[in-house]
């Protein structure tokens, strides 16, 4: 872990000696992180589903207004960490609303503490699938969180439209999910996550099912939105380039049970479509994949 930290710093050095055109005036993202109070703090969190250990001793501080990406091999438990942050594992255990569904295997339970200082405010959640109600228009889908909070129709409409505008989907407000492309569905899902103006946005591989062009488009839309609004964002993804593009910091996780093996700062500054091919982003991706491959290799030899 220490080694990975030093690698992350070396990335920052590379960037300083080799300054990218658009963002030289931006403050170093690593120093910015340390100044802000944490919005989410995980302390020695472990989690098991029955006998299967999924998360092992994860400690993580996520500052308010930061964008953090959790990266790891599939099935490593990164989604579980996100769900712990969002309080969903607890939720799943207490909910008996799913008739005839197999018991959610949370009997193993959690140790440690997962504190999210947004419990009073709302939390936005975007899933791997859009999860839109097929019988509702895009606008009605986006307004759903407000509707369940008991907001009036006028407020719901105005704020849902505003959220759609933020995701550049206002034109499709009256359409139904089956009339949307995969990318538009995902935009609607993120607009719904944003509609109650959450301080914390949790993203569980939201663009995993999209084609690459659409994915890049949505990555840029999300990053631009975050740059202007600075909510706290936590992204789970298995794509390291996507993590480097979207987030300020990449947390690399080992294969199951997930443990943190490296934390890497990504190049700071605004993103555009050319960021994908920038050298500093490439170097960051290389560092992160090296850390990930090393962790996988280490697990295999054990």
């Amino acid at each position, binding site marked *: 872990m220490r080694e990975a930290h030093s690698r992350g710093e070396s990335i920052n050095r590379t960037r300083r000696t080799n300054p990218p055109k658009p963002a030289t005036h931006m403050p170093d993202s690593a120093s910015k992180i340390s100044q802000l109070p944490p919005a989410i703090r995980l302390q020695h969190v472990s989690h098991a589903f029955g006998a299967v250990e999924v998360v092992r001793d994860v400690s993580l501080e996520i500052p308010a207004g930061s964008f953090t990406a959790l990266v790891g091999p599939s099935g490593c438990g990164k989604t579980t960490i996100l769900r712990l942050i969002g309080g969903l594992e607890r939720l799943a255990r207490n909910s008996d609303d799913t008739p005839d569904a197999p018991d959610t295997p949370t009997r193993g339970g959690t140790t440690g503490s997962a504190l999210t200082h947004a419990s009073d405010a709302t939390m936005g959640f975007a899933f791997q699938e859009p*999860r839109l109600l097929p019988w509702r228009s895009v606008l009605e889908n986006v307004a759903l969180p407000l509707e*369940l909070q008991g907001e009036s129709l006028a407020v719901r409409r105005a704020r849902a439209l505003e959220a759609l505008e933020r995701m550049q989907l206002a034109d499709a407000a009256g359409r139904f999910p089956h009339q949307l492309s995969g990318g538009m569905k995902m935009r609607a899902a993120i607009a719904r996550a944003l509609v109650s103006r959450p301080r914390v946005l949790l993203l569980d591989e939201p663009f995993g099912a999209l084609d690459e062009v659409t994915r890049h488009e949505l990555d840029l839309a999300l990053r631009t939105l975050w740059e202007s609004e600075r909510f706290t964002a936590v992204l789970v993804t298995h794509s390291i380039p996507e993590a480097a593009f979207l987030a300020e910091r990449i947390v690399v996780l080992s294969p199951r049970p997930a443990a943190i093996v490296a934390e890497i700062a990504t190049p700071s500054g605004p993103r555009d479509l050319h960021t994908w091919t920038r050298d500093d982003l490439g170097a960051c991706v290389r560092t992160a994949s090296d850390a990930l491959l090393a962790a996988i290799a280490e697990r295999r030899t054990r």
Partner: protein
Amino acid sequence: MSRRFTDAQRSLADHPAVGIVVPIVTASGAILVWTGIKGAFDISDYLLPSPLAVVHALREQPSLYLAATIETAICASLGFLIAAVSGVTLASVLSLFRIIERGIYPLTLLFQMVPLIAIAPLLVIWFGYGRPSIIACATIVSIFPVIANTLAGLRSRDAGLNELFAILGAGRLTTWWKLALPSSVPSILTGLRIAAGLATIGTIAGEFIGSDRQPLGVLITTNLRSSQTSAVFASVLLAACVGFALFGTVSVLGRVLFARWLRGT
């Protein structure tokens, strides 16, 4: 856009005109076979009246048959409506409270298992002679598919959407109203279509016990006693028409009124 897409996907067999023409051709064929068999084996009118005799019976007393058909249709519709409303309500209550479901659902099977003819006389004692007991018969026969299909629909809702509602803090009742019920519309409609046909069967069975009016079931029993087989055939034909009309109305109304919830199915 979706309309055009489905049109392109439609084969000739799904064309709306084919849906009208082909049954007419088949029915004409059946009538020809019917007439042919009667002529070839020289079957007496008492056993098998000719199609013309059935038409003749209908034309002899049109107002009698019309009144009987309307009476049967009223009872079948009312029985169906009661079964639809109480079936969906009961299934919803069962799905909201699992303990009640465990206890009550096996009992609702009774509606399915008890031979209607056996309890029909009881219904007369409980609900009164004529319409009340006949409507009760229709309801009892048709309620089970409504309950079973509604329950199946309420149970099969998407786990991801269920989680979404839980995250958004929706309570049980809200989740039922805004998620479970809308997503079970297709299976509820399937249950209602089955119930529409069964309600007519239940109505006729109830009418066999007796009525203070002259519905189709009563026409069937009285004409059987006097061996007016052609009149029996006419009544049976009209009873089938009532069932078909109720089924068709439920199908069309369901598709029109609930179009929004049938998308993508």
